[in-house]
C-alpha cells in the first residue's frame, strides 16, 4: 500500500512542476483532463458507489456556474465565496431529487428519468430567464485577479483544477473507507439485504447525492471563470451530462482512481476528434463516436479498465496478491 502512495506522490510531484515545461495548448489539455476527472469523480460518488445512475449532473454544474456568476455580477461577490453558495443551492436541489427518487425505493430507471427531467427543467429555465441571459447566455467581463478567479495565463487554472481533483480524490478515498461508503456499496449490491441488517438506505443515498451535487457545483464556478461565457447548451445540456459520465465508466465506476484513469485515457483523443471534426464540418459525428464507445465499453469492459490495471500493477504495489475486488 505504501508503495502505491509513493508512486502516486511521484506522479503528483511531476504534475506540480509540469506547467514549467508545457506550452499553452498542453496546459489546456491537462486542465480539461483534471476538470473532467473531477466531474467524473463527483458523479462516481453517487453512481459508482450507490448504483443510482444520474444522467442529469449538468444541472448541478449549471447551478454552480450560474449562481456564482450572478452573485459576482450583482453583488460583486468573489467567486471563491460564490462557489459555495452555488454548491449549497445544488445540494438542496440534489436532496429534493433524491427525496423524490429514493423515498419509495424507486430505483434504476425511475431515478434516471427523474435526473434527466430535472436537468431538462433547469436547462429550460436558464434558456428562458432574462436574468440568466436566456439563450444568449451570460458573458463575464474579464477582470484578471485572484479574487475574481480570473487569470491571464493558464497556469493558475491548471493548479486550481489539479487542486480540485486532489480534493475530490481525498474526499472519495475517505468516503470509500468510511461507514457511509461501505454502506452504500452494500446497498448497491443488495438493497434488501443491507436494509435487513439495519442500514438506513434512504439516509445514506441522500448523503451520497448531496455530496455529489455539492462538489459538482464547485466545478461550475471554475468553468465559468475560465471560459468567461455561460450558455445553457454548453453547460446544462444532455451532452454535458454524457461528457461527465463517460470517463468514470471507461475508467471504472466505484473505484477511486477510475475517473482519473478514464480522463487521462480519453480526454486527449476526444479533443483531437472534436477539433478534427469541427474542421471537417460534421458536428454530430463526435457524439456518434461517444455513443458507440459507451455501448462497446458496456459490452466488453463493463467494469472499465481498472480491473486490467489492477492485474498489472497490483503485484508491484502490494506484497501479496490482493483478493479480487468485491
Amino acid at each position, binding site marked *: 500500500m505504501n508503495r502505491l502512495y509513493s508512486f502516486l506522490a511521484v506522479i503528483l510531484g511531476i504534475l506540480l512542476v509540469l506547467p514549467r515545461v508545457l506550452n499553452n495548448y498542453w496546459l489546456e489539455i491537462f486542465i480539461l483532463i483534471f476538470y473532467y476527472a473531477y466531474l467524473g469523480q463527483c458523479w462516481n460518488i453517487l*453512481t459508482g458507489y450507490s*448504483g443510482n*445512475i444520474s*444522467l442529469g449532473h449538468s444541472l448541478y454544474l449549471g447551478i454552480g456556474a450560474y449562481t456564482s456568476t450572478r452573485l459576482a455580477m450583482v453583488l460583486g461577490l468573489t467567486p471563491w465565496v460564490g462557489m459555495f453558495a452555488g454548491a449549497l443551492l445544488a445540494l438542496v436541489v440534489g436532496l429534493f431529487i433524491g427525496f*423524490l*427518487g429514493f*423515498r*419509495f425505493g*424507486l*430505483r*434504476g*430507471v*425511475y431515478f*434516471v*428519468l*427523474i435526473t*434527466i*427531467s*430535472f436537468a*431538462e*427543467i433547469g436547462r*429550460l429555465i436558464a*434558456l*428562458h430567464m432574462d436574468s440568466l441571459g436566456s439563450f444568449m447566455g451570460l458573458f463575464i467581463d474579464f477582470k484578471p485577479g485572484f479574487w475574481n478567479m480570473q487569470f491571464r495565463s493558464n497556469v493558475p487554472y491548471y493548479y486550481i483544477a489539479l487542486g480540485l481533483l486532489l480534493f475530490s480524490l481525498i474526499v472519495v478515498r475517505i468516503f470509500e473507507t468510511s461507514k457511509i461508503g461501505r454502506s452504500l456499496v452494500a446497498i448497491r449490491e443488495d438493497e434488501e439485504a443491507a436494509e435487513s441488517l439495519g442500514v438506513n438506505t434512504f439516509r445514506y443515498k441522500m448523503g451520497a447525492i448531496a455530496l455529489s451535487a455539492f462538489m459538482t457545483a464547485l466545478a461550475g464556478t471554475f468553468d465559468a471563470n475560465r471560459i468567461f461565457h455561460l450558455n445553457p447548451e454548453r453547460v446544462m445540456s*444532455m451532452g454535458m451530462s*454524457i461528457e461527465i*459520465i463517460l470517463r468514470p*465508466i471507461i475508467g471504472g465506476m466505484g473505484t477511486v482512481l477510475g475517473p482519473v484513469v478514464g480522463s487521462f485515457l480519453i480526454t486527449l483523443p476526444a479533443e483531437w476528434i472534436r477539433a478534427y471534426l469541427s474542421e471537417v464540418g*460534421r*458536428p*454530430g*459525428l463526435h*457524439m*456518434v463516436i*461517444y*455513443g*458507440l*464507445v*459507451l*455501448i462497446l465499453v*458496456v*459490452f466488453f469492459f*463493463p467494469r472499465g479498465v481498472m480491473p486490467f490495471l489492477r492485474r498489472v500493477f497490483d503485484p508491484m504495489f502490494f506484497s501479496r496478491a490482493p483478493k479480487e475486488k468485491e
Partner: protein
Amino acid sequence: MNAELVLQLAVQGFLMGGVYSLIALGLSLIFGVMRVINFAHGEMMVFSMFLTITVLLHWGIEPYLFLPAAAAIMFAIGYGIQRVFVNRILDMPEAMQVLVLVGMGIIFENSTLMIWGGSDISPKTRLALSSFRLGPVSVDVPRLIAFGLAVLITLAVLFFLKKTTVGKAIRAAADNRFGALIIGTRINRLYGICFGIGAACVGAAGSLLVPLMPAKATMGAPYTLISFVIVILGGMGSLVGALVGGLFIGVAESLGSVFLPSTMKQVVSFSIMVLILLLRPQGLFGGKG
C-alpha cells in the same frame, strides 16, 4: 383568459395527445415485455420524421401515404437493434442497460444531425393549413387526421396483442419468460418483433407529426421524456394506461401554454411526473409499480 381559448387549447391538446399515446404505447410495450426502457425512443421518432420529409421533398409523396412504409422501415430497424444490441443486455444490471440504450439514443440523434443538418425543416403538405369550425372551436384537419390514425394504430396494436397467436405469445413471454421458453416459444424472435412494433409505433407517429410541426434533429429527447411521463402516469407496462395518459398529457401541456411560453410546455408534464411520483408511484393504471 377566456373560455373559448381554453376550449380551443384543450381540443388541440387532446388531438395531439392521440399521437403522444401512440409514442408512449411503443415505449410501454417494450418495457412491459423486455423490462428495458428505450432511451432512444424520441430520437427514433425524429429519424422517422426526417425519412418522411425526405420522401415528401424528393418524390412529393404525402406523409400519410408514406406512413406504412415509415412504420415498416422502423420495424426493421427496431428488430435489428433488438437482436444485435438489446438482446445482449437483458440479463445485465439495470445500470448497464440504461447506458447502452442512452448510447443508442445519442447515435440516433447525431446521425440525424449529420445526415439532415441541425436546422428546422417544415415542408409544405397539402392539408397543412386547412381547418374547419366546430361550434366555438376551429379544428386543424391534419391534427384531426393524426389523432384518428394514431388512435386507430394504437387500437390495432392492442387487438394484435390480445387476439393473434404472435400477440398472445408476446404477452406470455412478458408474463413469464422461463415458462414461455419451456413450452418452446422462440423468445428471441418474439422480443425482436416486440421491439420492432415499439419502433414502428414511433415510426408512424413521426410521419403523423410532419404536417403538424417543424422537424429538428435535436428535438427527440423531450419526446423520449414525455413518453416516459405518460408511461409513469398510466403505469409502467400498462398499454391502456399509455393511451389515457397520452391524452391527459396532451391536454395538460396545451393548457399550460396559457401561462407558460410554448417552448417551456414540458415543465407542465415534468411537474405532473413529480406529483405522480410523490403521490402514486405505481401510476394510475399500474398494479406492479
